[in-house]
């Protein structure tokens, strides 16, 4: 059983009893953090706002399904991931559209990035973040979930297992395979050169 903050716990109890005001309090408590997670997930603030709002509405609809075995916020993030996957699936471009190339936004649609408006460091870090997001997106959904919940939501393996409704062993195994796949991606390992060789003593 995960320890939930007392204020969240009491609000959750009231919300489960049908108190919409209490759920509004939960939204106030977790709204900003959820929005930050959504933004990290898709890289687009407008889309992130929609995702976070829809996640909270979805959470209200199926609040009875939350059994308290994981942090409420992790449970919210699991909903967020599912919603994001649905949005991406709905907006997935036809294969012919992929020939356009260029950078893509959170929905996989091409976007124009104004690099001139940003300092060099910021440009580089945003490009790296976009690259990492692209690499994660190529993973199977179950692998994306564990990577996101472990590395960005920073929850424990037990909490992730409870949020996803699977065992800790399954979470470990998915994390292992997800990291293996990421390791084999050339795009992600492009800068793994001399620094690694020095590190391992070659």
């Amino acid at each position, binding site marked *: 059983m995960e320890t939930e903050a007392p204020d969240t716990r009491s609000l959750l109890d009231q919300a489960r009893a049908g108190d919409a005001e209490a759920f509004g309090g939960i939204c106030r408590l977790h*709204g900003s953090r959820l929005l930050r997670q959504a933004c990290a997930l898709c890289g687009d603030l407008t889309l992130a706002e929609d995702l976070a709002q829809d996640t909270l509405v979805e959470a209200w609809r199926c609040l009875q399904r939350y059994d308290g075995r994981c942090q409420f916020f992790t449970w919210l993030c699991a909903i967020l991931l599912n919603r994001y996957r649905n949005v991406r699936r709905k907006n997935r471009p036809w294969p012919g559209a992929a020939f356009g190339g260029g950078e893509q936004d959170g929905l996989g649609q091409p976007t124009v990035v104004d690099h001139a408006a940003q300092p060099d460091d910021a440009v580089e870090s945003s490009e790296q973040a976009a690259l990492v997001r692209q690499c994660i997106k190529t993973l199977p959904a179950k692998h994306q979930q564990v990577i996101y919940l472990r590395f960005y939501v920073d929850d424990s*393996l037990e909490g992730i297992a409870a949020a996803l409704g699977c065992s800790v062993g399954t979470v*470990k195994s998915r994390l292992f395979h997800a*990291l293996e796949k990421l390791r084999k991606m050339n795009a*992600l390992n492009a800068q793994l050169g001399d620094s690694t060789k020095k590190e391992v003593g070659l």
Partner: protein
Amino acid sequence: MKPCAANRKLMVGQILNTLDAQEARQLRAHLETCEGCRRYLAEMSHVTERLAAVKINPDIQASESFHRNVAQKLRAAKRDSLGGILRAYIQGRAPHWRVAVPVVAALALIGVILVAWPQPPKNAAGRSAAPAVTLVSRPDNDLAPTIANYQRTANQSLEKLDALLTCQNKQASPALPSYTAATPRLANEPF
């Protein structure tokens, strides 16, 4: 040099901080002697470092309009909860184009085949040449040709009686005699 297969999960465990003290000690001892595993651990560490490139921006705060929109959506969800649930269900179940396109193509192909399939020839009246199925049930032709059977059939239906008589007439009618050169001789034979 490849990493030892038995130690790869241990190394991922180290990265995820899920090893107990004994496992960590064993792995450290192994890494001192195994170059392949050292490289593997470095690569995995690099991957997790790269994952950190996606940063959670602490400056992002949910605005008042964000909370207003949430409240609006919650009210809307409450107002048409049944309709909303149904809509969400249908939207959620709507097939993706990767499924929908082949299904539509298959249905279109079936439609084309049905339309282009050669139809049986029609007679002048526009009706199919195939024999029409009669709605009147056939009478039992095995009935013995007795008055009682005819009365019973007539009590059921006059049409059945008519059909029965027709059938029995066809069955009972003897083949017409064929007149050959031998036929006149029959008349000369003694009774």
